[in-house]
């Protein structure tokens, strides 16, 4: 009924499949590994690269939060390019996870403003190339709420109970809490930290859920489950407007939050030349214009401000220096400070 030949057959089959799988990968041509936020894999961003290297596959892996990306890299995740945000850049450099970048090989280096590129410079060498900078602010479904919020404090308004979603990140919520309480972020005393924790716990009855992924938030707001996102990235705004959903990106009286993110080449990258070509492709005028038009982010390639859709630039105040002045940018945290902020967030999440 079941001759032992079957055993041999299964073993042989198994070995064949495994070796075929491995062999298949090797003969399919070169591959560039990019570790990205989900949403940035769009071919429009790297069209120049695809044209230049038609036989190279770009393999994307995704993460939803900087900590997740760092943890993976620190535990040996293999990739060529990473795209973390500035608050973490120091950590990557200190842990030897990235290699210095030769800016002479970058086609669009001259068009990048210094206030952005300076952040990626450590120990006299450039480790990160800025790509996008953006705001983080409140996003509202204007058709669902009676009153549009004008301050971070209003996230706590019971009128929005059960329809607020916030980003599941200790750093972000620490900022939101600090701004709502009128503290100066990155300069809080332990008593203020405790007050922030309590304040965040008080927000929980208003929350529907935490969002961990930008596209998740888009779905939640599109379906009308979430009326107020505190906070959201500009790309959520653009994607919702594209679907015809009435939303507004708020300018809170305490100021918006802001961040810069960019590309680094990993220390053990296997395709360094391809990595440079990829960076050149995504920082090209076309790609960066597309970024502004589609996602509403600020682009590192300053020339793109002129080629982008003026309405978008206007709506997001990308060229407006006064907004930038009021914006609170994320700063690098020391590991100890980060641990405190994150552990406080853990307490908020754990409390009933």
């Amino acid at each position, binding site marked *: 009924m*079941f001759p*032992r030949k079957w055993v041999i057959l299964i073993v042989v*089959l198994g070995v064949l499949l495994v070796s075929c799988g491995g062999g298949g990968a090797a003969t399919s041509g070169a591959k560039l590994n990019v570790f990205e936020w989900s949403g940035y894999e769009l071919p429009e961003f790297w069209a120049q690269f695809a044209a230049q290297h038609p036989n190279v596959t770009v393999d994307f892996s995704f993460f939803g939060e900087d900590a997740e990306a760092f943890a993976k890299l620190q535990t*040996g995740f293999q990739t060529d390019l990473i795209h973390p945000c500035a608050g973490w850049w120091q950590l990557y450099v200190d842990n030897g996870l990235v290699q210095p970048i030769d800016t002479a090989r970058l086609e669009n280096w001259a068009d990048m403003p210094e206030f952005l590129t300076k952040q990626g410079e450590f120990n006299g060498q450039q480790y990160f190339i800025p790509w996008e900078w953006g705001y983080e602010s409140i996003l509202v479904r204007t058709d669902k709420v009676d009153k549009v919020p004008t301050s971070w404090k209003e996230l706590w308004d019971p009128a929005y109970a059960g329809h607020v979603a916030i980003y599941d990140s200790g750093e972000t919520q620490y900022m939101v809490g600090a701004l709502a309480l009128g503290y100066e972020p990155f300069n809080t005393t332990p008593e203020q930290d405790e007050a922030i924790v309590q304040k965040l716990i008080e927000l929980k009855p208003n929350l529907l859920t935490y969002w*961990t992924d930008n596209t998740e938030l888009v*779905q939640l707001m599109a379906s009308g489950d979430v009326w107020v996102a505190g906070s959201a990235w500009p790309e959520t705004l653009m994607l919702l407007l594209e679907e015809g959903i009435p939303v507004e990106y708020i300018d809170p009286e305490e100021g918006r939050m802001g961040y810069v993110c960019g590309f680094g080449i990993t220390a053990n990258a296997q395709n360094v030349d391809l990595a440079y070509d990829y960076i050149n492709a995504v920082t090209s005028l076309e790609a960066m214009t597309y970024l502004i038009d589609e996602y509403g982010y600020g682009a590192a390639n300053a020339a793109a401000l002129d080629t982008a859709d003026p309405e978008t630039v206007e709506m997001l105040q990308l060229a407006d220096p006064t907004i930038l002045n009021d914006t609170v940018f994320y700063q690098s945290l020391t590991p100890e400070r980060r641990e405190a902020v994150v552990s406080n967030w853990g307490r908020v999440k754990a409390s009933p």
Partner: protein
Amino acid sequence: MLAKSSIGRRFTFSLGAAYFVLFTAFMYLPILLLVVFSFNDSPTLAFPWNGFTLRWYAALAQSTELIKAVWNSVLVGLLSSLIATVLGTLAALGIVRFNFPGKSIFLSVAAMPLVIPAVVMGVAMLILFTMVGIPLTLWTVGLGHVIINLPYAMLIVAARLAGFEAHIEEAAMDLGANYWGALWRVTLPMSMPALVAAFLSSFTTSFDEFAVTFFLAGSDTTLPIYLFSQLRFPSRLPLVVTLAAIMMLLSVLIVLAVEKLRRMST
């Protein structure tokens, strides 16, 4: 008295039957709804019914990420199930045929992966791989699956081995075979249904495994990891739903096969 109890019996019988039907409906309804709506001509999973279409199935065939994930899951499933079955069979042989000090401790340890929460398993193995410097790949996922499936494979084969003549190997050896020959030519074929059942059950577990895999996967994803990442995006759901329908069918077939084998081996 007889009449009363038989009416009572019939009442509880129909009550029981009604409950059974209700329970079964509750179990199947969500799944069936998914299958039915995978044929719906609408971009989201919602009423009303827009017409019958196969376009989602066609789109499925073109979704390279998805196909790659399925292929990875099949590879990991096959190889890890093979190893788990082999190791489980060896362990079963040891448990059933031998006595040694620490046997019950071994049995307890071997059974533990069955009841350790997945998050702890995943985390512990992640720590191991990190410390030793092994990068996360499909191989690390496979190792995790082997450990998860080993206990159950062992139990299935042990149940079978315990069921027949304890001295069968000796009998074969009396006829001139050596020990390993006896195992290969006599014991193994006789336990084949249990081995195949163990293999299939390991495969279905591995194919659907998410909680531990999440911690051990690198850039190559398995199907459950891919599914999880898609669960947040309802707009891509029609594809996921069609995949669900296909997977349901396959699971049903495999479960039926395992059941048949299990019954054949007892």
